């Protein structure tokens, strides 16, 4: 089944700098999937489990978080905390009988790096394969 997934990305201020380049047009030019709704946060460590679940409640087919490298977080342990919360959401999804792969955590270098776009494409492709969220009712 072909569909255009709605994906919510929570990314920290540092790892999502590409979204600011060329007045926000660089990501588009590099082929960053259009269905990804990027939410920039000061630090991914600030994200709560409820924030990620709310994104699913609001209709996301997939949710992912991009934070600093585990050993190089600007706020020391922010991205490690985020990864733990992503894991908790993944576990909860599985409990509800939903594919845990619909939520993911990536640790990426800060600044302008091609991995940011690659991971967006990877997530888009994964969710296309999984199909629409079972929470759509």
């Amino acid at each position, binding site marked *: 089944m072909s569909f255009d997934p709605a994906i919510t990305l929570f990314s920290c201020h540092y790892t999502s700098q590409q979204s600011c380049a060329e007045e926000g047009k660089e990501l588009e030019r590099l082929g960053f999937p259009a269905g990804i709704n990027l939410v920039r946060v000061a630090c991914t460590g600030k994200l709560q489990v409820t924030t990620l679940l709310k994104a699913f*409640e609001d209709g996301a087919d997939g949710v992912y978080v991009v934070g600093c490298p585990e050993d190089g977080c600007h706020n020391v342990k922010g991205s490690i905390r985020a990864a733990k919360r992503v894991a908790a959401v993944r576990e909860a999804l599985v409990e*509800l*009988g939903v594919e845990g792969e619909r939520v993911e955590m990536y640790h990426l270098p800060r600044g302008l790096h091609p991995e940011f776009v690659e991971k967006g494409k990877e997530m888009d492709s994964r969710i296309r394969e999984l199909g629409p969220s079972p929470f759509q*009712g």
Partner: protein
Amino acid sequence: MIVAERKPMAEIIEMVQDCKKVLVLACRGCVTVCSAGGEREAEILSSLIRLGMKKGGKSIEVVTASLVRQCDREYIDEMDQFEDDGYDAVVSTACGVGVNFISNLRKDTMVYPALNTSFMGGSAEQGEWTEQCAGCGDCVLHLTGGLCPVARCAKSLMNGPCGGSVDGTCEIHSDVECVWQSIYDRLGSFGKSAQMEVIAPIRDWSAAGHGGPRKVVRDDLTV
């Protein structure tokens, strides 16, 4: 504190299956401290209930609130404020005491437990809780260096250690300390290892709940 864990979601979703509106009620007591049933966990549970019901093709309204504690009459009385909300059931994230208290005091309120109440314990490290007390009603900690053989020995031995104690660990698992070894070491550090040679008499377990539900009445406090 009382330590608890959330029940599996499948069990909770089954409880609320026929509900149109539920009140997820957090407790700001022990279960907040052990991160099982405080306001944050109640918000998470509310979201999971909505998602779980939606996945099953049903919609449900979930209201989230909290009480200071759910083990005191005065706080349960505060549930009057939710009376007009018209919920079908309360999903309590308190320990089993809270669920019982709501059931005891709110005759018209259906209440479901969101948690499995585990034990009385403490936070050994962040995110880790261990059992320390069994509430047996006849404390022997003054004889055992402050370490409880009832709660912390797999056999609740009163005269330990048993033959399964190896290098300070219990035979049930190498991760479990032999509390009797710890008792011996600790008494020794106070020059009281001779205490280990005193044979504990056969224990009367009636105070531990084996004589039926327990009750404490303080005449000096009743009015």
